[in-house]
């Protein structure tokens, strides 16, 4: 049954790939979405110290201007009919080689529009927040330059009309991420974390690069229209290969297993960076890639299954790690991994899940960015302390941070009517509705992880805002200035309302339909949605109660107590680094050592040995030349005699 059904489903989903309408009127502004922050970055990074006093304002202005353009474009797009909401803007002929012709062009459609609004909207809020957060930092201008560079690259990533231009944005955000994680270059840990993020991302990028090459070899083009529109005519083996390579790329960028290790270390960067890049936008690029490449995954069920497995594994890992970390940013990072795992899981469910994945991505963008900014506010108040065991009782001194963080908390655990409820609940439902054994496994994983999410977020809340104060001596926590609290308030409002607004009347679903295809109505639910919602809420309630009993009611020791093997494993990121070291780094070192040995002894040894043999042999042969004429004469006689003898033997 499943084969037929999935084929029918694939037919249905592969349909939407309409040629984009050429950009005209207000849509010719599309390119300015990318150009404005790019100009901002150029101004900030090239103008030197003289821009220090006003540099941050340029950064904020560039980002806000880009957001305003995005709003204008959004309303212009609203004015079009559903299937004409795909606007292509041709920029220039990029690679005009015979047999390989690539145009650089932008594609504005409902999917990229949703991302553009998220990136520029949340990005602008975080720019504003950074003005306060980085006010005492000598490198603030450089910081804003990098942030603008990131926004430009991220917008290019989601607006590109082909995989090759997407790759440019993909590498651009990787570069910006590297620069911003290692922003505090004087900290060796930050420099190492930046390198680690860069290297791990390269592994994924190789996957994406190979996928693009395979696409070119298969389709002769790398544009979305050319590749996704012709996916029907290609063997499923090729599509599975492309799908798995794309998944590898997504794993690198979105910190999914097995390339998840860099994200926790990436928290070495300034907190606004963690909020913008490593929570709200860049790490969701993998989800974008999978959803954008939907027609490929729809025709490659194996690749899609791999996507769901990666999502399920990562969301469990992230949830487990989140339970044991004491560093507030690492808890949030583990939570980000876990939530992106949810999105990847949803994206792997096919047309039933694409819209839900994007929904969770948008709501997560709000509440996780809000919570990261809240964490930044707490750190700001406590002299950059990140250990939650040194927090406690902050709800009285930091009321705004507490309330905004609390709203984000309610959103992420999925309490109705906060935004996380609508998206996460739907993911669990869709996972169960997948049917079969895999549906049950994925659904149960997502369900249990929702409980674990509630547990570790309750732990975070209890350790940070409740209980007795465990601050370091001399700490005088205070509420952040309004330039920092204002973005937190806006994001908190977003995390309260976004979910409901996007779900109401299926608004996001309808909006995305021209791109991701119609959501397939499941005939019979595995579990009725109402019952499943109740079960989910029960599990979440259990997680909250557990977290409160363990961490809210008891006093928290200032140093981490000894713990069982599972907690130790979670504290050490489930041995992700150890596994990488044992499986990749050590064998790599052995391989290089062996290669050096082989090169020195084997290759050089052979060549040098040959030369030495010939040299030694020649030195001995030389002794034949004695200089005595008569011995030469003897050899001539001997030779002549031999020739004569040979002739005689032959003749006779």
């Amino acid at each position: 049954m499943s084969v037929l059904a999935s084929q029918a489903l694939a037919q249905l989903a592969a349909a939407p790939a309409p040629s984009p309408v050429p950009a005209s009127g207000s849509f010719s502004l599309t390119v300015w979405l990318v150009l404005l922050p790019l100009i901002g970055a150029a101004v900030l990074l090239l103008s030197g110290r003289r821009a220090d006093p006003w540099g941050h304002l340029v950064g904020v202005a560039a980002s806000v201007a880009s957001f305003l353009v995005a709003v204008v474009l959004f309303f212009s797009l609203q004015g079009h009919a559903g299937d004409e909401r795909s606007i292509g803007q041709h920029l220039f002929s990029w690679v005009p080689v015979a047999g390989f012709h690539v145009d650089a062009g932008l594609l504005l459609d409902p999917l990229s529009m949703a991302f553009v609004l998220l990136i520029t909207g949340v990005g602008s809020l975080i720019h504003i927040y950074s003005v306060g957060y980085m006010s005492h930092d000598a490198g603030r201008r450089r910081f804003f330059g990098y942030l603008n560079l990131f926004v430009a690259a991220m917008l290019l990533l989601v607006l590109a009309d082909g995989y090759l231009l997407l790759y440019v944005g993909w590498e651009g955000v990787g570069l910006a991420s590297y620069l911003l994680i290692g922003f505090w270059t004087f900290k060796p840990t930050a420099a190492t974390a930046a390198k680690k993020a860069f290297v791990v991302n390269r592994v994924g990028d190789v996957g994406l690069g190979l996928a693009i090459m395979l696409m070119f070899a298969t389709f002769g083009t790398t544009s979305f229209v050319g590749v996704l529109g012709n996916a029907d005519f290609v063997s499923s083996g090729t599509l599975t290969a492309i799908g798995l390579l794309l998944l590898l790329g997504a794993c690198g960028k979105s910190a999914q297993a097995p390339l998840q290790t860099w994200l926790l270390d990436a928290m070495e960067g300034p907190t606004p960076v963690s909020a913008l890049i490593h929570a709200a936008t860049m790490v969701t690029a993998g989800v974008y890639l999978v959803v954008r490449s939907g027609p490929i995954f729809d025709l490659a069920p194996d690749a899609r299954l791999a996507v769901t497995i990666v999502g399920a594994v990562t969301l469990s890992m992230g949830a487990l790690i989140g339970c044991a970390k004491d560093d507030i940013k690492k808890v949030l990072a583990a939570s980000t991994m876990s939530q992106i795992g949810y999105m990847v899981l949803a994206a792997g469910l096919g047309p039933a899940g694409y819209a839900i994945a994007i929904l969770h991505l948008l709501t997560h963008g709000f509440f996780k960015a809000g919570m990261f900014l809240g964490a930044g506010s707490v750190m700001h108040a406590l002299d950059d302390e990140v250990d939650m065991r040194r927090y406690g009782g902050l709800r009285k001194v930091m009321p705004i941070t507490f309330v905004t963080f609390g709203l984000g908390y309610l959103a992420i655990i999925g309490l109705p009517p906060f935004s996380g409820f609508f998206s996460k609940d739907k993911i669990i439902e869709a996972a169960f509705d997948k049917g079969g054994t895999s549906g049950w496994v994925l659904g149960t994983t997502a369900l249990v992880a929702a409980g674990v999410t509630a547990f570790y977020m309750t732990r975070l809340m209890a350790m940070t805002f409740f209980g007795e104060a465990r601050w370091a001596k001399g700490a005088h926590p205070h509420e952040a200035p309004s330039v920092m609290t204002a973005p937190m308030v806006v994001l908190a409002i977003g995390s309260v309302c976004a979910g409901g607004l996007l779900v109401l009347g299926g608004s996001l679903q309808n909006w995305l339909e021209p791109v991701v295809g119609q959501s397939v109505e499941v005939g019979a639910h595995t579990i009725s949605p109402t019952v499943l919602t109740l079960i989910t809420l029960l599990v979440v309630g259990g997680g909250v109660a557990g977290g409160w009993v363990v961490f809210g009611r008891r006093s928290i020791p200032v140093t981490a107590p000894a713990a069982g093997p599972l907690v130790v494993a979670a504290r050490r990121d489930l041995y992700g680094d150890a596994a990488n070291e044992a499986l990749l780094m050590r064998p790599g070192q052995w391989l290089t050592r062996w290669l050096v040995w082989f090169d020195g002894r084997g290759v050089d040894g052979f060549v040098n040995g040959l030369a030495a043999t010939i040299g030694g042999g020649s030195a001995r042969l030389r002794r034949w030349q004695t200089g005595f004429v008569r011995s030469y004469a003897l050899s001539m006689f001997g030779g002549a005699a031999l020739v004569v003898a040979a002739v005689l033997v032959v003749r006779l």
Partner: protein
Amino acid sequence: MSPDWWLYLSAALFSVGAAGVLLRRNAIVVFMCVELMLNAVNLTLVTFSRINGDLDGQIIAFFVMVVAAAEVVVGLAIIVTIFRTRRTASLDEANLLKY
């Protein structure tokens, strides 16, 4: 008289010459032994010419004589020069051109 005797004689002369070249040290004697070998060969050629009844062997013998005359000129000049520089005509002393 059977032509075989001439061939035996030339073989004997050739052997005497060869032994002289290999065994004597004096350059002049070695040189004369070379001449002896050449003439032994000439005798063979002439004998073959007689046996076959044509002139080929005799013509080649003339060529050998011409070349030998030229060789004598060059060879004696070299030997005289060696004797002048090294005060000896021993071949074993003139062994500088070696490894």
